[in-house]
């Protein structure tokens, strides 16, 4: 008897008992749907979380000075230069100072987030898109002279200048609660609001402005010594070494070794924690899935045993007509595998539907991999074989006369 024949027989038998077969499949359906859905959602969430970390800067080190530090112990421009020059894993370094203030040009004053930094700010900033639409970024020369120059985000520029776009060279006023200065716009970067799509209403979005930190000192009385610094490392693997090295260097330069005045933070440990949680999550799901599939498998075995008993006469007749032990064995094993596999396929489809709907609700992308699909189907077949063998052997070993006599 060919495999195709036993396949057809198995499908006939399953079709003859639709309701019972479906109930038997439920274990597999639910188990596999859960696995597929949770894996897909988990993958989507992981992508989203690591994406967020990368946005925030997986290669970023944040350096800060303790409130207990004296004036001499504040970080200086020379310190920053020294860090950059002595450690080639550092690709950019900038003071990190944000002022919540106001900006005005011809019309109304708008709220503004004003970032002060070195020319490296273009590369260290996590919030302002560094790509220039027109003009230029400020330079070391601008920084050294405390030049009254500013770079503005395109959407901010539009709101200040009545939708005009050609505004490089125009003047605007930046104001803190105490002081205001007039600055010349030297560059326009891409819109920042794009990055926060949907998160904030566009018209209430502040104007983003970047100026040299030296110029910041002219508008904000709080901006003095450097208390916060952002460092970009070459790669994610470098950030631990960069963090340690920077702190050591600062402590040596200010002669405060061991006093813990300087702290370097990075997202690596947080990222590791997220990784751990996600791994644990996946392992947990794997365990739940295994239990669900074993329960499903027991269901398959149970129904196959019932089926063997019900079809005892059929088995006897088939044997009389020339079916060998192997023929009967294959017939019932095929039935168990198909039962299990159909459950697996229905579960797979259900899982994909659930994953897509949940992902849509959470605004993430469900990631269903081919590996997961193949794994699930192979596993479902394996469950069918494992739990089908005992009933199939029982059927195959029936004594033909006793089977024929069975009422």
């Amino acid at each position, binding site marked *: 008897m060919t495999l195709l024949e036993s396949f057809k027989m198995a499908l*006939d038998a399953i079709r003859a008992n639709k309701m019972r077969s479906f109930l038997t499949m439920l274990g597999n359906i639910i188990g596999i749907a859960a696995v597929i859905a949770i894996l897909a959602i988990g993958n989507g969430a992981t992508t989203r979380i690591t994406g967020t970390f990368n946005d925030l800067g997986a290669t970023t080190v944040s350096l800060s000075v303790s409130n207990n530090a004296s004036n001499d112990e504040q970080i200086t421009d020379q310190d920053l230069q020294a860090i950059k020059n002595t450690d080639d894993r550092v690709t950019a370094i900038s003071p990190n100072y944000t002022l919540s203030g106001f900006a005005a040009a011809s019309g109304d004053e708008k709220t503004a987030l004003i970032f002060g930094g070195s020319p490296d700010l273009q590369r260290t900033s996590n919030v302002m898109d560094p790509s220039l639409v027109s003009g230029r970024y400020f330079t070391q020369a601008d920084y050294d002279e405390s030049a009254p120059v500013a770079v503005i985000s395109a959407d901010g520029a539009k709101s200040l200048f009545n939708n005009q776009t050609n505004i490089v060279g125009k003047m605007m006023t930046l104001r803190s609660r105490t002081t205001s200065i007039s600055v010349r716009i030297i560059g326009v970067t891409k819109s920042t609001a794009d990055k926060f799509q949907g998160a904030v209403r566009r018209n209430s979005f502040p104007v983003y402005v970047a100026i040299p930190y030296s110029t910041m000192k002219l508008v904000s009385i709080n901006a003095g010594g450097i208390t916060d610094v952002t460092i970009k490392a070459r790669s994610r693997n470098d950030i631990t070494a960069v963090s340690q090295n920077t702190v050591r260097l600062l402590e040596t330069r200010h002669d405060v070794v061991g006093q813990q005045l300087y702290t370097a933070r990075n997202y690596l440990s947080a990222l590791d924690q997220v990784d751990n949680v996600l791994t644990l999550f996946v392992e947990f799901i794997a365990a739940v899935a295994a239990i669900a599939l074993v329960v499903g498998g027991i269901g398959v075995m149970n129904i196959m045993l019932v089926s063997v008993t019900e079809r005892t006469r059929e088995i006897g*007749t088939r*044997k009389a007509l*020339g079916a060998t032990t192997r023929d009967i064995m294959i017939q019932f094993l095929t039935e168990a595998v198909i039962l299990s596999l159909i459950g697996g396929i229905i579960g797979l489809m259900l899982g994909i539907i659930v994953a897509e709907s949940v992902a849509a609700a959470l605004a993430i992308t469900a990631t269903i991999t081919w590996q997961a699909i193949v794994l699930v189907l192979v596993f479902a077949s394996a469950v069918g074989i494992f739990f089908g063998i005992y009933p199939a052997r029982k059927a195959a070993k029936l004594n033909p006369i006793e089977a024929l006599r069975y009422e």
Partner: protein
Amino acid sequence: MSLISLTHIVKTYRTGDETLHVLKDVNLTVNTGEFLAIMGPSGSGKSTMMNIMGLLDNFDAGVYTLNNQDVTHLNENQRAHVRNKEIGFVFQSFNLMPRMTLLENVALPMVYAGIGRGERKDRAADALTQVGLGDRVDHQPNEISGGQMQRVAIARAIVNRPAVIMADEPTGNLDSHTSLEIVRIFQELNAAGTTIVMVTHEPDIAQYAKRIVSFRDGIVQKDEPVANPPQLFSQEVSS
């Protein structure tokens, strides 16, 4: 040369410490082309004998030769092949597969013989035509009468062109009119050369065979030819 030769067959059942001697040194020879009826009261060992001849059951002593092959010591697998090739079974309760069409039912022995789909279909349709059901190939067993079901079973029994048809009480579940219909088909097949062994406890049915072997308490009590058995297939027997 005999088709079936059973010599000194002994069959006992042991239940607890009791030993039941069902067949006590039975000898039976069937030649090609015979139509043999096995008769006897209930419990005399007819079915046991039939199951042994059909290679469905073992026996404790004796030698069995079928179609020039010593089949006394075959294993389960070899017996399945011999059953498939040499023997066509007809059961009292028809034993059709309920969810298969008549054509699929008749084709089943050929599935186990490894015959291809196309040939199976043709031969199964031919066999159904031979028993007068050529127009019912796509019907299911629950759509036809008992007599028709037994005709399907006969088609299934002859489809692999076996050396012998073995029927255990083939008319046991049928009324007398339908029973004669079945016997008529047996006579037709026999006239065309098929060897038939039929168990029955009804003398009315046995009289149509060419030879009657009577069992009693596990031994062959009588074994004699039937002088001029009435021919059913020349007459019109409508269904």
